[in-house]
């Protein structure tokens, strides 16, 4: 009896395997930036529900994604930066023509504890705080309190952008606290009176206070318009002008529904 059941079970499994293979005729691979990954992942899930295709999404970083596009091993490369000239040359030499599609904006808000009277900073102030030149809020006209600098692990994409735009590539003070995620940064700032940190726009709520940077308050419209200084566009690169399934998927990401998912994942929609 048990044996029969086993045979039946394996038969069912093999059958379902076949239907899986036969059912999904078209394949789409997406690879690249871990910052764009949540958008690509969510879009792929919803797209697969409505269409009979198989989409595989992988992270690995912008550089890896673009390298895969150059090698022709991926249909779409996610990138949190623009393509470099060297990569374009390599791609053309390989017979591939990368086309950028801006799919979302990524803004990084500078946050402090809600009780901190400071509510605006300049990029210069932020740089001086993060390089350790300003160590007390008094120096910026705040309370006499030590600044607790909170940063991200140096391999995260958020760190990369923040360090490039706000700290201008200089070394962050080694006494900065390291937190491994946006959520952990938010938590630490919310529980530490003298703290300053930075998080993606999607993580803002009333437990922390976002400061104006160079006089601009971070929100969806200031990031989308480029007024807020600590922001960057996110891209999906395709090989040549997209056609067929690839075009349909990119259009889906850019559609109102796709942009709503962008916002749900904590990024800034384009419109």
């Amino acid at each position, binding site marked *: 009896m048990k044996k029969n059941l086993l045979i039946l079970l394996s038969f069912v499994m093999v059958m379902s395997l076949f239907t899986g293979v036969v059912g999904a005729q078209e394949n789409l691979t997406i690879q690249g930036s871990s910052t764009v990954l949540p958008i690509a992942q969510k879009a792929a899930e919803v797209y697969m529900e409505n269409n009979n295709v198989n989409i595989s999404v992988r992270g690995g970083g912008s550089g890896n994604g673009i390298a895969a596009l150059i090698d022709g091993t991926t249909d779409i490369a996610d990138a949190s930066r623009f393509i470099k000239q060297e990569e374009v040359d390599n791609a053309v030499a390989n017979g591939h023509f990368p086309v950028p599609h801006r799919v979302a904006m990524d803004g990084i808000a500078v946050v402090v504890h809600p009780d901190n009277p400071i509510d605006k900073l300049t990029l210069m102030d932020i740089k001086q705080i993060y390089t350790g030149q300003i160590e007390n809020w008094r120096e910026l006209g705040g309370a006499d*309190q030590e600044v607790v600098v909170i940063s991200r692990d140096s*391999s995260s994409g958020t760190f990369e952008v923040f360090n490039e735009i706000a700290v201008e590539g200089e*070394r962050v003070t*080694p006494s900065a*606290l*390291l937190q491994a995620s946006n959520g952990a940064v938010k*938590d630490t700032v919310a529980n*530490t009176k003298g703290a300053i940190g930075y998080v993606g726009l999607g993580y803002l709520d009333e437990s922390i206070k976002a400061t104006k940077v160079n006089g601009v308050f971070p929100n969806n419209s200031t990031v989308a318009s480029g007024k807020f200084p600590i922001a960057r566009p996110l891209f999906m690169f395709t090989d040549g002008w997209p056609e067929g399934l690839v075009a349909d998927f990119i259009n889906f990401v850019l559609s109102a529904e796709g942009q709503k998912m962008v916002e749900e994942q904590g990024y800034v929609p384009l419109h």
Partner: protein
Amino acid sequence: MDWKTKEKLIKYILLIFAMSSIMFLTGIVIVLFREGLPIFYKIGIIDFLFGQEWYPTYDPASFGILPLISASVLVTLGAMIFAVPIGLSTSVFISYIMPKSIKNFIKPTIELLAGIPSVIYGLFGMKILGPFLKDIFGLPTGLTALTASIMLGIMALPTIISLSEDAITSVPKKFRDASLALGGTRWETISKVILPTASSGIVTAIMLGMGRAIGETMTVLMVAGGASAMPKSILKPVRPMTATIAAEMGETPVGSNHYQALFGIAIVLFIITLSFNIIADLTRKRFYKKVSGK
């Protein structure tokens, strides 16, 4: 198939399974050294181990891991200062003073501590102990080396208590009887006869507890604060080696200098824990020689 070939077959299958953990160990060691050794040539052993700046993703990058090693050593020693007195007195109490019926209940309960996932210790340290220490000492942040030390101390307790209790109980009963018969008090018997006899067993327990503490990752990632500066005080945030590897490995390009440096840290950590285990093993052997009288 007759029973003889069957027996043989089973024997070989079991042999393969038995060898598998040795294979896993060799595999891990090979990968560790293959990925991590190049950084020692590129940076130089001295600059890597004693450099004071850890800026792996900058250009030019700095790969000095002394702040990370110091942080690991600091929180581990802190943990032992906390855990050894508590662990030792607990094990003496359990093995000599507590009635056997209660002991059979208390010891398994303490060993349960070892089964709690480290992320739960981390949560406790982050949400309860950290804010508490922050208020007591008036610190800007509660995520410090001290917080990590106390949490690691608690985590090392079951290892220390359980093993040193075993060591103390395996001191032959005639030692105790002789001491008491000579007119020694119970305290004299414990402090002058039992503990010295069990000392190498206790050292084993402490070494294994230290191995547990220095290799612990999740808890220190959550509560130690993660500042890569040289530790100046136990009340400042620090970043141990394990936390660095865990936080940075995820998004490091495979084969880059940064990637190799993280494996380099892993090699250093591996050598440290390996030597703890070897010392523990040697003292354990000495201990059994001593109590068996051979």
